[in-house]
């Protein structure tokens, strides 16, 4: 269990007191709006002194190098001309999680300026609780009555008034620098999408720590540009994840980036974000990962949730690989799928069986295996369900027309 803190190295570093419940702290280091890195520091007598933080920052080669680079970049780019940021819409898709949504909206409303808007898509709600909550905030609200996160995402894109559609999950919390950092990358027309850094909002339980250690959303503290010259589009998992991503609205609508047969609310469970990133890369657009677009994610607190999460993620990721292979003839999907299986599943199984430190519980590893093996079947069922729904919808339309 770790305390999570943020320290701005551009300002004065002060002692952090009142941390008696924790043995160590994970400190996110920033320089103004730029995110520099993370250091883990042990806590003594509930106090984390400024000198400890400074020593930890100096002691990390990666942090001190990035800090030097960022300071020089900021120095040199002072007063440089920049292009005007595009208009934007933050789309939050949610389903019956009002408490999480409240925190998410609180953070979003605090960082929003008039150049954009927030749009909440309520996906197949079981009550009007979300609608009542949203009425308290200056945000737009729409209902997608059919279940499916990707359907909600597509509706969000259709209703968005901004050129850029930024997707946030209802269990994320935005930082003030989040939206400007994402928008900054869209100055290049070939950039179809941008992903950002997602760090854990809390590390209070073993399940949360295990999740962060083995399946954390963070992709490091270096900006990276992905295109078909640098990666196979099927490696979309390396680019980012659905809780912190933005795309051009025109591209989402033209290419139909979010397939209804994927992600939450379908048998495929997850993977809608991976497939969208795949489509962007396959069409020769660029994806940019920027660590400066920081938001926080509330990891699940219980081990049982962790087991389900690992099952869902494996099922979703392998459904996408399967879809890429079958529908787009992407042979690279086999290679990536095998690499992923070796790097994550087999390695985790070996670590669990040999009882290495911080290993995953065997049930969680088996859940990931189960999800992987079930993926082709799940994808097939999900696709058939979507097709029959479309066919039925088509016949209803025909009846209406007649």
């Amino acid at each position: 269990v770790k305390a999570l803190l943020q320290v701005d190295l551009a300002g004065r570093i002060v002692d952090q007191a009142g941390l008696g419940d924790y043995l160590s702290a994970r400190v996110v280091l920033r320089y103004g709006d730029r995110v520099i890195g993370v250091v883990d520091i042990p806590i003594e007598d509930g106090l984390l002194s400024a000198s400890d933080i400074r020593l930890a920052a100096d002691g990390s080669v990666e942090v001190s190098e990035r800090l030097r680079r960022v300071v020089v970049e900021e120095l040199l780019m002072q007063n440089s001309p920049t292009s005007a940021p595009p208009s934007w819409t933050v789309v939050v898709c949610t389903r019956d999680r009002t408490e999480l949504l409240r925190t998410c909206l609180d953070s979003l409303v605090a960082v929003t300026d008039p150049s954009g808007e927030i749009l909440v898509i309520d996906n197949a709600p079981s009550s009007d609780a979300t609608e009542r909550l949203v009425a308290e905030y200056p945000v737009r609200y729409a209902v997608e009555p059919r279940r499916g996160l990707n359907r909600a995402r597509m509706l969000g894109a259709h209703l968005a008034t901004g050129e850029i559609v930024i997707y946030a999950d209802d269990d994320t919390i935005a930082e003030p620098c989040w939206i400007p950092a994402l928008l900054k990358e869209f100055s290049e027309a070939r950039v179809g999408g941008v992903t950002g850094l997602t760090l854990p909002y809390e590390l209070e339980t073993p399940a949360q720590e295990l999740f962060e250690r083995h399946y954390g959303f963070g992709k490091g503290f270096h900006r990276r540009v992905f295109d078909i010259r640098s990666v196979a589009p099927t490696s979309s998992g390396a680019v980012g994840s659905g809780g912190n991503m933005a795309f051009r609205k025109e591209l989402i609508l033209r290419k139909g980036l979010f397939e209804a047969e994927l992600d939450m609310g379908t048998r495929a469970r997850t993977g809608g974000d991976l497939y969208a990133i795949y489509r962007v890369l396959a069409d020769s657009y660029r994806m940019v990962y920027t660590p400066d677009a920081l938001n926080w994610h509330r990891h699940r607190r219980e081990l049982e949730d962790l087991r389900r999460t690992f099952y869902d993620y494996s099922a979703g990721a392998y459904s996408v690989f399967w879809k890429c292979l079958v529908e787009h003839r992407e042979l690279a999907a086999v290679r990536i799928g095998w690499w992923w299986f070796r790097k994550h599943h087999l390695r985790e199984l070996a670590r669990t069986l040999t009882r290495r430190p911080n290993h995953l519980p065997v049930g969680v590893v088996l859940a990931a295996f189960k999800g992987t093996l079930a993926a082709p079947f799940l994808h097939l069922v999900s696709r058939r369900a979507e097709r029959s729904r479309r066919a039925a919808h088509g016949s209803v339309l025909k009846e209406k027309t007649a």
Partner: protein
Amino acid sequence: VSEFSCTVVIASDSRPDQLNRLLSGLSLQTTDARIEVIVILDGVTDASRNVALAWEEKVGAFASFLVYEQSRNGLAAARNRGAFLARGPVLLFLDDDVIPEADLISVHLRHHATADHIAVLGDLEPVQMRPHSLCELSLWSWWEDTFHRRSAPGQPSSFRDFTAGNVSLRAEDFSRAGGFDTDFATYRREGHELGHRLLNSGVRFVAERGARARRHTVATVRGALRAKRNEAQGDVLLARKYPELIRGLPLMAAGDKRARRAAGLAMFLPWIGDLIFLARATLLWIPERLRRRRSWQAKFDVLQTYAYWRGLRRAVGSMKAVHALRETALPPMTQQIDASRPLAAQVERLNIDVPSRLLVLYKDDAVGSIELNPGNPEPLLPWIVREISERMASTLLLDVARGVLVQQAAEAASDVQLIETA
């Protein structure tokens, strides 16, 4: 004062359907300005003539419409003819395979209303005619990168930025520069050549994404390779006319090992090379079908290198002649920027036509140097900032800290002096 605000000059090269679409697009422009359209048919033998004449008969489509036919003299001569016949103060050159957005002319004219001696470079985004064609995706990515670079804040202008497919400039600037060089009759690079003269005559380039016309041509590997061969021949002409540009032309070096091998084959064993590369071009569909994009791109790059050097051989005859051409190049350049002053204004004035060494100073101290390459695909200002921050951060920060200390010491000394005086 002319009765027209702008003359659109279209040099047409036997593409009747495209010409018809272009003229339809022009007839639907949202501008209130009076527009003159001149179509120069360059040795056409197909239906282009009928298309142009049909538009000539349409009353009210344009304020003035003129068709001129000439025997095949090349696009440069055709455009010059159009400019000669033009009556508008602003010339807008358009390729015949583009479809303009409805506000194309008004966006071009808006720039000319507010500034003199500028050439407005419009967007020419290629439309993907065949979905999933890697050749078209490659062409589209290249164009997007190119346009993004030329329109980036702080980007210096280069003769390479000037492409004649969607560009407007004042007629007097065009004639002062001497128009297109007709020596480039059948080759490409006539735009680059005029761009060089325009820059030398003081014309500033303004890249405007809003002035958009989309190119509707099916891109093929064969077409791309033919274009590369012609580019090489155009480069030879450029090199002969402008020794100051030679160092920035691809004929100076082939690139990596595979490119050098392809270039060697093209120069020394062209018959064998032609056979090998014909086979490679024919088999390029395999990685495309297997969706092996990086493999396809690498093979396509080598094919393009081969085609370029094959064109070079056709233009100069031998490697010895290429070496002779290289020897006429001017000596390498060294430029400098001062990191203690705002960078954007300094970067905008850099010469990126040829490779050079860029000295980075902080006040009077040298911090380091960077090799500037005209082939750099990124916008220059962020690239330079990244290079400095990655390679010279420690030295630069030390210089900054020393500067602060010196300043503080000077201030302290001046305070002491003041106290002593008091």
